């Protein structure tokens, strides 16, 4: 919880200032609450992101009216043309900071917001685009854009918390609608949001989902990933991608060792097999939250940074790429280019 709630007193402390109930009182409680409370002003803004988390806000359909009753949505580009530059009682921030303009803008918004909550893996941990942090930024730009000079992006994509104080985080790629609702309800009622910092494994076991590592030999980030998704991926027979980022005390090196050695986990070759390719394991940890320290330490140690070489595109034929292989930090031994590599993730 302390990890999630960055404000010293937790969300409740912040909520006490913004909640409609003044001191955060349950109805009927004699807590001396103010009459006719002003609805807290809520803004939703985005930086480098896919808008999926904003769409999740719209996905809590059954509760949108309740939310609108209790909060005044003053800025939410995905949902309304109404705009506001602040001030905000609560500001939900999607996306990572990836351009020079965004560095300025997030500082301005922070000054306008009483409570700043990052929503999703991009805002909280850098997101998938943070993979470029350890890669060759110029090569990426050249590969994607016909005239890279038009694109003014930072060499890194960083979480909001590296630039301004963040009061609370909602993890996930995208965030969970239930957790979003839990946060809003907590803000409205003054209680502490229940955003448990536990491994996904607990949810698998509660749901009765047989462990995909043990039963199927699939690579799964569940043991080192925070719960919150309800164990969606294992429920459909595949390994966890780590959307919700590292859980507290994630022993990623211990887990990676077991994946590589084949001593136990996820050996794709069956009992007694030789274990996994270390680069595959490194790549497993290089996902939405791959820029967080516990995940990145594994990728740094084992290799598996972004696909290499960059795939040629129509816009950027191979000859426009810089000479020589791109530099990806310092993986031990970059493997030979392989046409069978699956860019979506490690092979089963």
């Amino acid at each position, binding site marked *: 919880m302390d990890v999630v709630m960055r404000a010293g007193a937790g969300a409740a402390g912040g909520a006490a200032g913004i909640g409609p109930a003044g001191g955060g009182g*349950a109805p009927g409680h004699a807590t001396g609450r103010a009459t006719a409370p002003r609805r807290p002003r809520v803004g939703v803004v985005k930086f480098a992101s896919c808008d999926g988390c904003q769409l999740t806000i719209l996905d809590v359909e059954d509760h949108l009216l309740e939310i609108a009753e209790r909060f005044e949505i003053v800025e939410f580009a995905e949902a309304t043309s109404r705009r506001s530059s602040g001030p905000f009682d609560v500001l939900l921030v999607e996306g990572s900071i990836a351009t020079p303009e965004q560095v300025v803008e997030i500082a301005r918004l922070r000054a306008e917001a009483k409570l700043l909550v990052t929503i999703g893996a991009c805002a909280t941990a850098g997101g998938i685009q943070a993979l470029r942090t350890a890669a060759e930024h110029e090569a990426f730009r050249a590969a994607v854009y016909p005239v890279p000079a038009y694109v003014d992006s930072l060499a890194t994509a960083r979480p909001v918390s590296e630039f301004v104080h963040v009061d609370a985080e909602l993890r996930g790629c995208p965030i969970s609608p239930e957790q979003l609702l839990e946060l809003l*309800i907590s803000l409205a009622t003054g209680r502490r949001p229940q955003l448990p910092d536990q491994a996904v*494994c607990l949810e698998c076991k*509660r749901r009765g989902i047989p462990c995909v590592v043990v039963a199927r030999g699939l690579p799964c980030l569940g043991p080192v990933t925070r719960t919150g998704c309800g164990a969606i991926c294992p429920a459909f027979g595949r390994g966890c991608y780590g959307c919700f980022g590292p859980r507290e005390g994630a*022993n990623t090196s*211990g887990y990676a060792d*077991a994946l590589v050695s084949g001593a136990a986990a996820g050996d794709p070759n069956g009992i007694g097999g030789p274990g996994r390719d270390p680069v595959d394991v490194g790549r497993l940890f290089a996902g939405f939250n791959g820029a967080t320290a516990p995940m990145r330490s594994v990728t740094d140690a084992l290799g598996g940074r972004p696909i290499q070489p960059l795939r040629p595109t129509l816009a950027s034929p191979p000859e426009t790429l810089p000479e020589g292989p791109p530099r990806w930090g310092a993986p031990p031994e970059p493997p030979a280019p392989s046409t069978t590599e699956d860019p979506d993730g490690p092979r089963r």
Partner: protein
Amino acid sequence: MVIASPGELATTAPRFLPRDRFDELIAALGEGGRRVVGPTIADGAIVFADLGSAADLPGGWTLQTSPGRARLERLPEGPGEARTFQYTVSGEGIKRFTFPSRVDALSMETADDGTVRVRVEAPADPAPLAIVGARACDLAALAVHDRVLVGGPAVDPDYAARRRDLLIVAVECALASSTCFCASMGTGPEVTTGADLVLNELDDGFVIRAATPAGERVLTTVDDLRPATGDQAEAGAAQTAAARAAMGTAAIPANPRDLLLANLDHPRWDVVAERCIACANCTLACPTCFCTGLEVHSGFDAAASSATRAWDSCFTEGFAQIAGGSFRPRHRDRYRQWLTHKFATWWDQFGTSGCIGCGRCIAWCPVGIDVREELNEIAAAPAAAPPTTALVAPALPQIVAGLDGAPDPLAFSPATVVAVTPETADTTTLRLETADPRILAGTPGQFVMVGVPAFAIPPISISRFQPDGIELTIRAAGAATSFLTRLRKGATLGLRGPLGRGWPVEDARGRDVVIVGGGIGLAPLRPVIDAVLRERDRYEDVRIYLGARTPRDRLFVEEIDALAARDDVLVRVTVDRAGPEWLGRVGIVTQLFKTVRGTGADATAFICGPERMMSATADVLGDLGVPREHMWLTLERHMECGVGLCGHCQLGTRFVCRDGPVFSLAELGDDLRREGL
């Protein structure tokens, strides 16, 4: 209730059920609307689920288990290729049916008139259930749960309701996996207790015997079953004997309890912590683990909220969390808690081993940690001398069968705030009126669980007993306690208690009394002061030493000043830091008592404050000669149930909520200072 053990197997003649007639057994079990569950193949594993017919059973499959692996495989071609139970343990056993992963626990409502009601959800009234395919280890685990959940002073009503009408068809294992060690734990592979019917599977069918009258009734409804031949019965017994032989009986050290308790600081804990990913799979796959946590839910309309009780695990940081942090921050602490609870302190708490040898924690550990190996590594190079005594189960009272007539320690009663006294910037005393005779009969040092809608339910020490209620002095440390400190006169809330073992004030009769309080720690000591002063002449010298962070953080200032004015009580107050307006002492509380009267041997001390302060105080008082068995202190731990059922507050062999929170220094021993315990 059929909670009580069904006892020894009755000896009725075993019969033979041909393989193609298994459906008739399922039909017989399902008579009268009984739900029938058994092992099925699902999601690449063997999972207990509803059985429509014998075709749902894992016929033709086996499960290969080894550390970190449990893979389904086809049975090899041959005479046994169609066998149904030719594997050892399923992924999660039968625990879910008697102890579901989530159950409704509480509803908390604010009525229109503002009255708060906290209601314990009625136990489930499940359809009668038949479980097919339980193994000896599953039944041993069930017996352990009986001991834990209905065998102690507090009964889990939901478990009792689900356990009440259970019909079990057990299977004696025909093989052993590399992860199995039931023969070492004395729990299998033979089924000796807990089943109604017992199966031994042969290539062409099943030797089936009834172990209870209920089982016999089922058998008689299956038409035309011939008695098993001597050869069939022998063949069944022989393969179980072979399974036993394959496992051996010395998989773990002979007396793991004494071994582990003597080696709480063994270097092996650090070694295993490098591998352990604290994912909690071992605890959740374990059929005896019983720890749960409350999840509170509310909508925007916080007037109505509810709490769910969900499986929890000592491998999470939140499990041992209090406002100041987690008592088990490191994986080393959590692994040690798991292993020592399972193999050692369980004996002290419940008179049995917590491990029944099913090996699920080994197979379902994603990194393949093997508890047998960990125990044996410690036994091979113990840091403390290995014990030579055999492990003897302590004598325990008979399992209390039934809930009738027993007061329900889980029930809440209403209370009304009749006075609010702000003490400091963050601490408030609520005077509560209640008619609950149990609460009014509480003793100093006991605590109550305080429920209001939408919030977690914190344990709060009683800071004074009144003829018509109690006082609670609450520091705003989290959301729930913050809310409580903001309540106004007239508010209502739910109280559950009084809970725990309080201060043994009578221990101080005829002796000198030393009371040492730090910060909010004065609150639980206040009823001790009240009790001592009420009968002042029964005690000798009385001294009270109090510490606070700053002068503004002192509690009950007027009361303490009045006490200080008395000539039959010595009161000394100090603060950690203060401005020039403070004319009193500055320093830590242990600097206050350079002397006690006489040798100290005649003194009884009551100490409450942060654990570090209590431990320093105990050191100083010990040096002054106060005996360890007369030094009493009260511990703070994460508590949710308050009656020893949820598991959060464990400290070594103790449940702090039930066995404490007040302990003597002699009782606590080294555990007071042991990090991560």
